[in-house]
């Protein structure tokens, strides 16, 4: 049987969901026998999101231009997209800035009012991506096939979600075992 092509992407999150993924410990070896990791910030050095990906775990909400571009590409090239963790599912902690009236007042507060030596707004077009006005959960922008809330989802829940997928079945996200915010 051909190996499943697995990708993971990291948008606006703290990397906690990826760390939780690495907490799968020795099960990662079992996983490695069944999947090819074709793109991932923690498991490959590929720069371009490849074509024909089977499953992609998305950590983080959509907070800037780069996140937006990557999630659109990933959606286009992936069969089964999973919102991985609360930032992807609810926008979570990064969205705390949404209540403060958009990107501008927040940037001004951080970089100008609280800037000590040389207060200036970060501005490197093409290098530092522009912030979107609002941090948004992934499914508000592209279609999501499965939601795995949690901040982060613990390793055993990640395993319980991925295992059925490897057998070609859709996991049942029900009850306290599988649904947990925060």
């Amino acid at each position, binding site marked *: 049987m051909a190996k499943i092509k697995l990708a993971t992407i990291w948008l606006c999150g703290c990397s906690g969901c990826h760390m939780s993924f690495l907490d799968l410990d020795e099960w990662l070896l079992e996983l490695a026998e069944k999947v090819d990791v074709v793109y991932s910030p923690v498991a490959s050095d590929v720069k371009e999101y490849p074509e024909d990906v089977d499953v992609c775990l998305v950590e983080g909400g959509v907070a800037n231009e780069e996140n937006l571009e990557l999630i659109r590409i990933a959606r286009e090239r992936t069969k089964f997209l999973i919102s991985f963790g609360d930032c992807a599912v609810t926008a979570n902690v990064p969205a705390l800035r*949404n209540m403060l009236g958009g990107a501008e007042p927040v940037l001004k507060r951080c970089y100008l009012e609280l800037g000590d030596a040389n207060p200036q707004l970060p501005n490197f077009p093409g290098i530092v991506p522009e912030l979107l006005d609002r941090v948004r959960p992934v499914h508000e922008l592209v279609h999501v096939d499965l939601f795995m809330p949690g901040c982060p989802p613990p390793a055993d829940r990640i395993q319980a979600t991925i295992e059925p997928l490897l057998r070609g079945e859709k996991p049942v996200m029900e009850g306290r075992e599988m649904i947990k915010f925060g």
Partner: protein
Amino acid sequence: MSVKTLTIDGVDVAIEEGATLLTAAKEAGVHIPTLCHLEGVTDVGACRLCLVEIEGINKLLPACVTEVSEGMKVHTNTETLQEYRRMVVEMLFSEGNHICAVCVVNGNCQLQDAAIEVGMDHTRFPYRFPQRDVDVSHDRFGLDHNRCILCTRCVRVCDEIEGAHVWDVAGRGPASRIISGLAQPWGEVEACTSCGKCVDACPTGSLFRKGSTVAEMEKDRGKVEFLVTAREEHKWTR
């Protein structure tokens, strides 16, 4: 007192006139999810989680404030109801600012419990991200409007059990909010006895004890019920 007979999910129930469908369902061993209902205080039908279908009535009615009547045929778990219940919980999440990861009651929250119960793993409604205040003027407790679902459990407990009537609801629609005293900071309301009943009654992290950190705050959910039984039946132990 006359007795009414009805069926709930096919189970025959006989119960005294004036009882609510929620009480009748309990009697019949049928569980209906609730949020604003609190054992020991009056019901107000604020959250709409307990909606049920009644044959011959073409709207859904809240079980906690609907009285039983003779021959009623009640359904509590149809597909329509499951769908609406999920929507109700989704709306509660997207209406306020529920960032569970930094909440005092994370893991001990009845709104989270409701989400799990109705099978909500995300909300289909766009988040509103409203701007709301936090009142920490009371020396022992705090009120975070971001997490308030306007169930008014605090209002009813303070009025009906403590007898202080510190809380009320002000405003309309999305501007509705809980106020203390005459919209004073909580700490300045002399009527407050600092009993903490409102804090224990609150299903979310909206009312909390000061100094509790993320996921630390557990509420004494049985306190109100205990107090009512103690008063009415003179049973002082639990």
